Structures are given as structure tokens and as C-alpha cells.
């Protein structure tokens, strides 16, 4: 049986969205608990004492932190349905590399498009588009990064699509015109129920970013 599964999460968290998608892909029943960021609960501090961040996957009382680590855990425990990582070690290594690229480039640069100003923001916008173009190159003619099947990299990356409206509005630029292939892949992925039900509403994400901007003192 699945056991008791709790997901400690925050609506707009792209990392939390990864786990919502994966659990949905695997048909795992779980309890969703919303953390009211930036006011974090004592339960979160108990489950993730080191980083104090969401998401935290809690399986039979045991916490797993860090979204890509939890993603691999979900894939290993519920390995029978919709495997996310391929079985070939070389292809697995490539999938891990691209998921890591999403964290290192898409997340970091995307963040700067709304949190930085002036020259730093302009540079971040440019590099962000470049990173998406690198991903377009990797996607090539495949329907998904996983090939014919929706996979690990697709799950790792698609949540950021819900943040594009916020990036574009705050950064005053258009992503779709520069990266049409990327947007086509995103729209294809959104047709999956696991994705459309898991991604946050872009307007609500934008509202959340405005709160973050106030919180961090960014005009």
C-alpha cells in the first residue's frame, strides 16, 4: 500500500509543483498541507530543521527534503507506474544533468528577472533566454525531454512556466517570442492532467512575487 503521504508545500512554489505532478503521475493519494510563507510553521521546522524550506515529502512519518531528491524517492518507491527516470544509466545521468541545469540556471536567473535591478536585471534577462534556448536545443524534435514519454526533466522544468507571467511583467520582456519551441513544449505538457492540476495560476504567482518584492525591499 502507499502508506501515509503528506506534502508540506506552498501554492506558488515551483519546487512543490514538481512533487504534486510526480505524485499525480504515480496515482499516489496524499494529504496536501499549505505552508503560509513567509510565516513558517513549527511543523516545517521540525520536518526540515536544516533548510526550513518547502517542499517536504513526508512518507510514513519520515521527511524527505529537496525537491529533486524527493522526486527520485517518489520514482523509486512507486516505480511501477509512469517511471520518470529512464532505466539506462547514461540516460539517467543526462536527465540528472538537465534537471540540475534547471536549478542552476532557470531558477537562479529567473529569480533575478524580478529581484534584480538595472544592469544586473538586464544581464539576467538575457542569460535566462539563453538558458531556455540551450534547453530548446536539448529538446530538439522530441515531444518531451524524456523522449516520447513525459519524464524527470519535464517534471523538473514545467513548474517554471507558471512563473513566466511574473518574470515577463516584472522584467518587462516577452519569453514566448524568443523561445517558441519552449512554449510549445510547455503547452504540450500542460495538456497532461497531472500538470494542469498541479501548476499554480500565473496571476496568483505574480501576486505572490509582489509580496516577495515587498518583503525583500525590491521596488
Amino acid at each position: 500500500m502507499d502508506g501515509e503521504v503528506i506534502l508540506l508545500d506552498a501554492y506558488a512554489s515551483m519546487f512543490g509543483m514538481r512533487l504534486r505532478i510526480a505524485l499525480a503521475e504515480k496515482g499516489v493519494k496524499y494529504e496536501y498541507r499549505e505552508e503560509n510563507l513567509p510565516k513558517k510553521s513549527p511543523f516545517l521546522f521540525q520536518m526540515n530543521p536544516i533548510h526550513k524550506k518547502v517542499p517536504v515529502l513526508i512518507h510514513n512519518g519520515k521527511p524527505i527534503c529537496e525537491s529533486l531528491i524527493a522526486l527520485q524517492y517518489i520514482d523509486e518507491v512507486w516505480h511501477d507506474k509512469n517511471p520518470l527516470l529512464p532505466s539506462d544509466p547514461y540516460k539517467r545521468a543526462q536527465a540528472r544533468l538537465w534537471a540540475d541545469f534547471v536549478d542552476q540556471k532557470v531558477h537562479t536567473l529567473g529569480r533575478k528577472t524580478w529581484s534584480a535591478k538595472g544592469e544586473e536585471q538586464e544581464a539576467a534577462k538575457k542569460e535566462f533566454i539563453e538558458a531556455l534556448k540551450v534547453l530548446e536545443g536539448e529538446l530538439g524534435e522530441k515531444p518531451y525531454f524524456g523522449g516520447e514519454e513525459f519524464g524527470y526533466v519535464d517534471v523538473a522544468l514545467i513548474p517554471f512556466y507558471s512563473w513566466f507571467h511574473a518574470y515577463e511583467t516584472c522584467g518587462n520582456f516577452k519569453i514566448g517570442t524568443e523561445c517558441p519551441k519552449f512554449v510549445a513544449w510547455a503547452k504540450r505538457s500542460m495538456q497532461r492532467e497531472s500538470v494542469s492540476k498541479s501548476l499554480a495560476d500565473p496571476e496568483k504567482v505574480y501576486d505572490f512575487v509582489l509580496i516577495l518584492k515587498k518583503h525583500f525591499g525590491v521596488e
Partner: protein
Amino acid sequence: MEETGGVKLLGFWVSPFAQRVKWALKLKGVQYEYIEEDIYNKSPLLSKLNPVYGMVPVLVHNGKPISESIIILEYIDEVWKQAPLLPQDPYERAQARFWAKFAEEKVRQSVWEAMCSSGEEKQKAVKSAVEAFEEFEKELKRRGTKFFGGETIGFVDIVAGCISYQLALHEEVGSIKILDSSKFPAISEWIKNFLNHPLINEGLPQKDQMFAYFSKRSKEIASQKMSHKTA
């Protein structure tokens, strides 16, 4: 370079990332050809094998390249099943991956930053490093085993292992003190046990050469920071 089967490792002599891969291959008894890459004068080969980041280490197996040290370790563990680095149980595997990430991002990274920075930035970095060491110490004590992986060296030991032979040098070059053995008895004991393993200690770079390299690098980084500030 001939496209043959077999294993090749592109590395840089002082790179702790390349060292992780060497340790994993040696512990599993995998024969490999080592290729030294001058990272300040990168070869076309490196650009071809790692087009995304252009960095070492790169493992080449049967002509196919794998990059990023922690990803390479997972690959090695999946291909060569002897002397397993990760545990079998999915929860324990997740914990090992968590602590490996922590060792890389919080332990190793903060020590490097503390070495290369000055003033307030340095103080902040030292504080971060000490906090990271405290968490690591707590976890080692909680496990109560010789190594993070248990009685044999495992995934986390290999990722964190660079501190065993480079930390003291970083402290000296950066005029910082992080590993107080009275404050961190479990880590100190772990370092001793780790370096005691003949395959771990074998072929490590010379201390004086590492010292000279770190001194030069930290000065370069400091002057880069100054030029950014005044620009």
C-alpha cells in the same frame, strides 16, 4: 583521442571534484585512463565533451561523456555494482543524497568562500561554514558509525572527503579556523579514518603545491572582487 571502450577521466590535478570520481573508481576497482586538463587553457576536447559547462571532471565511458561530479558518482554506482556507494533502501538513499548535497553546497562551498573573501564577507562565510560543520558533526554523531556510509566508505564520505585533505590548507591560506577538533570530535575522527584508507590516501596532490595554488587563486579572486566593486 581514440574512441575505444573503457573508462577515461578528464580532471585537473587539484580539483576536489575530480578527486571524488577517482576515489569512486578506485574503490570499485575500475581501471581508467586519467587525462590532465589545464582548466585555464581549456582543450577543444573538454569543450566537446562538456559543451554545457566546459568543466572537469568528465567521465567518458564507451565514448560517452558524463559530467558533474555527484552525477558521475551516481552513474559509477549504477554501472559497477561492487562496493556500492549508495544504500539500497529508498529512504536511506534520499538521506545520502541530501547529505551529499549539503556537504557540497554548505560544507565545501562555504569553506572556499571563507578562504577567498575578506572583511565582513569573510566573517559571514566563516560563520556559515561553522554552522554547516555543526550540522555535519551532529549527523555523524547520530549515525555513530565509522563513516557516513556505515562501516565502509560511501556516497556522502566521498563527496565530503575533500575536506579531509584540503580543509587545513584552506584554513591556512585564508587565515581562518573552522575545524576545532575539540568542538568537532566526530568529524576529526571521521577525517582520520577516511585518510587511513590506502585507496583514499594514495596519489593525493602534494601539500606544498596545493598551498601555492590556493594562495594564488584566493588572491586572484580577491582582486576580481575589488575590480567589480570599483568598476
